[in-house]
């Protein structure tokens, strides 16, 4: 879709808004932002200080308990504690500090320019790919690497190839080793491979970034998989400590992957084509793109904390630099603006959002229209056609893909 009202392709969920409406909406969002800035202070600072203290105490405590992890209860308690500590470090603390949400405190230690997190990606690389690319170019296909992390088809307009069939598996594997997936995508490995193939030079500073990432991965692995298990050898708890660290990193990976999938992947979240973004996108237009391209998770305070308040992905994308503890507070005001301007405030409980995101991954792993036009009765013939599409030559494939698309459109029409 496009959000440039004057562009010929203008359509989609904001067709009813005039250019002036969009700018007015932008001003109303600016006012919400200013309200938070005006009241930002001691209470907020106390909040982040407390979360950091809790995280560090929890990590220390869990690591201490794991020294005795040869005893099963200690193993369980330590592993759970360490998993929670790692999730807090990455989500509510690291992600948000690196967004500059706490820079205003002028605390040289809790600052976006110096913070390093417990993750395979370096802060430097992550700030570039996440803050700069993902947040500025949210959901623009080809520009925003978060959309499918460069390994998946996430939009109908992207070409389907037989390789797409593997993407649910790819997504699952990526989930298990998510921190390394993110480290690799911060380095834009896909793009670099294409550059190398075409014989062009790597961008300036890339090699340094890559070696920093390798060093970070080495330090992280040395800590979790060598140093702490070695310390635990004293109590014969080395192997169990190693296992606990593996489990904690795995749990953190699965959790962060799931939360992040909920932010932009669920069905109904808009994606954009670069050609449709106006050259001089106004603040209002940028806001609208953030609003339509994000989805929230509804739930308890604990869920918001453990998701780093990315459960308020919509509010976070509109105001990435406001302190995370304020998102819940402004959510009703933001939602009221969605209602006022007739936009869809996309929110649902976590299981539903995760299922929806996975549904999209599976649906788009198949040709457009395939899933919609497949029923229990016609499944065998559909699968037969799919196999033909995979094996056949380009012409056959193109014909079959068109057929699927037409059948899909027809069945959706019937349902309506």
């Amino acid at each position, binding site marked *: 879709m496009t959000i440039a009202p004057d562009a010929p392709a203008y359509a989609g969920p904001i067709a009813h808004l005039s250019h002036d409406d969009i700018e007015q909406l932008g001003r109303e969002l*600016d006012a919400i932002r*200013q309200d938070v*800035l005006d009241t*930002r*202070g*001691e*209470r*907020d*600072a*106390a909040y982040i200080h407390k979360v950091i*203290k809790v995280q*560090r*105490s929890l990590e*220390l405590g869990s*690591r201490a308990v794991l020294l005795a992890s040869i005893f099963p209860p200690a193993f369980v308690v330590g592993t759970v504690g360490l998993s929670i500590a790692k999730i807090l470090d990455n989500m509510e603390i690291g992600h948000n500090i*690196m*967004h*500059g949400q706490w*820079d*205003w*405190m*002028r*605390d*040289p*230690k809790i*600052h*976006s*320019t110096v913070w*390093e*997190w*417990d993750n395979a990606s370096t802060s430097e690389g992550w*700030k*570039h790919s996440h*803050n*700069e690319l993902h*947040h*500025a170019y949210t959901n623009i296909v080809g520009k925003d690497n978060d959309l499918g992390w460069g390994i998946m088809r996430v939009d109908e307009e992207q070409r389907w190839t037989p390789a797409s069939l593997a993407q649910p598996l790819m997504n699952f594997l990526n989930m298990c080793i998510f921190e390394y997936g993110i480290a690799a995508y911060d380095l834009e490995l896909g793009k670099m491979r294409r550059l190398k193939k075409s014989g062009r030079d790597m961008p300036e500073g890339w090699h340094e970034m890559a070696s920093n990432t390798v060093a*970070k991965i080495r*330090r*992280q692995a*040395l*800590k979790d998989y060598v*140093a*702490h298990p070695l*310390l635990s050898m004293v109590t014969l708890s080395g192997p169990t400590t190693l296992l606990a660290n593996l489990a904690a990193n795995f749990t953190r990976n699965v959790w962060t992957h799931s939360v992040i999938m909920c932010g932009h992947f669920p069905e109904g979240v808009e994606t954009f084509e670069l050609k449709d973004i106006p050259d001089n996108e106004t603040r209002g237009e*940028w806001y609208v793109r953030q609003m339509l391209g994000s989805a929230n998770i509804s739930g308890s305070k604990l869920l918001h904390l453990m998701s780093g308040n990315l459960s308020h992905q919509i509010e976070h994308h509109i105001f*990435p*630099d406001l302190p995370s503890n304020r998102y819940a507070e402004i959510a009703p005001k933001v939602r009221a603006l969605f209602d006022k301007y007739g936009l869809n405030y996309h929110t649902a409980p976590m299981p539903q959002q995760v299922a929806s995101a996975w549904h999209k991954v599976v649906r788009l792993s198949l040709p457009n229209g395939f899933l919609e036009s497949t029923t229990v009765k016609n499944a065998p013939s559909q699968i037969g056609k799919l196999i033909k599409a995979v094996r056949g030559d380009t012409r056959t494939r193109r014909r079959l893909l068109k057929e699927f698309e037409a059948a899909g459109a027809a069945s959706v029409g019937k349902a309506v």
Partner: protein
Amino acid sequence: MVEMSTSPALLAPGELRRPALRERLSRKVWEVAETIATPLAPADYLDIFNPLRPGADLRGRIVKVVPETADAATIEIKPGADWEDHVPGQYVRVGVEVDGVRHWRAYSLTHGPRRDGHISITVKAVPDGKVSSHLVRRLRPGRIVHLEQAAGDFVLPGDLRGHKLLMVTAGSGVTPVIGMLRNLFPVTDEGVVERQRLDVTVVHVAPSRPDSIFIRNLESLAEAGAIRLVTRYSGTEGRLDIDTLTEIVPDLRERTAYACGPAGLLDSLQAWYDAEGLPLQTEQFRLGPVVTTGDGQSGGTVTFTGKSIEAPGGKPILDAAEEAGVLMPSGCRMGICFGCVLPMKEGAVRDLRNGEVTVARPGETGPEGIPIQTCISAAAGECVIDHPA
């Protein structure tokens, strides 16, 4: 290391290798600590338990807050283990969080080195003074503040024999002087203890007696005959000028002179002493105001390390600097990615999105300056940015 040991004779035979081993061992232990703490530093964890330990960033814990006048209080602080002591008359820079934001200010130390190792500062809440009001009215014992080592050369000569002293103080300018006097004249249960015969004249200027910090201390020193005290309450007696000073202190020219107070008084004193060819030690904490352009239109000169550029008030510093050929870090160019943050050491910038002005005064920012986002900040006056051009 063995070769660094200056007097091996002090070591019993067989102990020769011990320092080297111990040093190597402690270095190894530290390396292990760093490995297991990564990506944080061991200090980040140790700070949870003991923020005042040796090796920590210098901090202090508030022990007591004692009111001095209606708008001044003495704050007693237990400094961290690495506090290096001070000389009476010196000041300390204190970093304190007000409304969640860390600010730095310099205050005179109002005690000489004390036996309990505590230090104290005396703060007067100035009108519109965010930090001073917070310190006087809201600071509670137990809170941690950030410190730098004592500094300043507003101190007495090492050997006072043969010196006659004059101390001119105005308002809260009395604070470094009281630090000196307390050190010169310790007080016991029996009263003032004079260590050596000293001839000290203190001329204290204040709007009124109740407004005077430490007036009771000065008066009791005077009653004990330790100092000659001349008070001048400008609210009723008018302001002090140099002619009256020469009348009050006839042997002015013979005295080693110290003065601490507002700029007006110090300037006129300094002019007189310069004209007479006499030395005067002064101390002043009131900082020159940072000039900000109020209209939101005009910008100012932005000085990078090695280059200055003119930046208009309506254009991001990032753009202005790049147009002038300065290589700048940059990112989203819309204020959301924090990829363009640079430390402002001095000056004022305006947030182009909402007009908010951020001011950095030398001495009042942290050691690192105030980080600003150059892509949404325009110069609102002269600025100094710590970045090589």
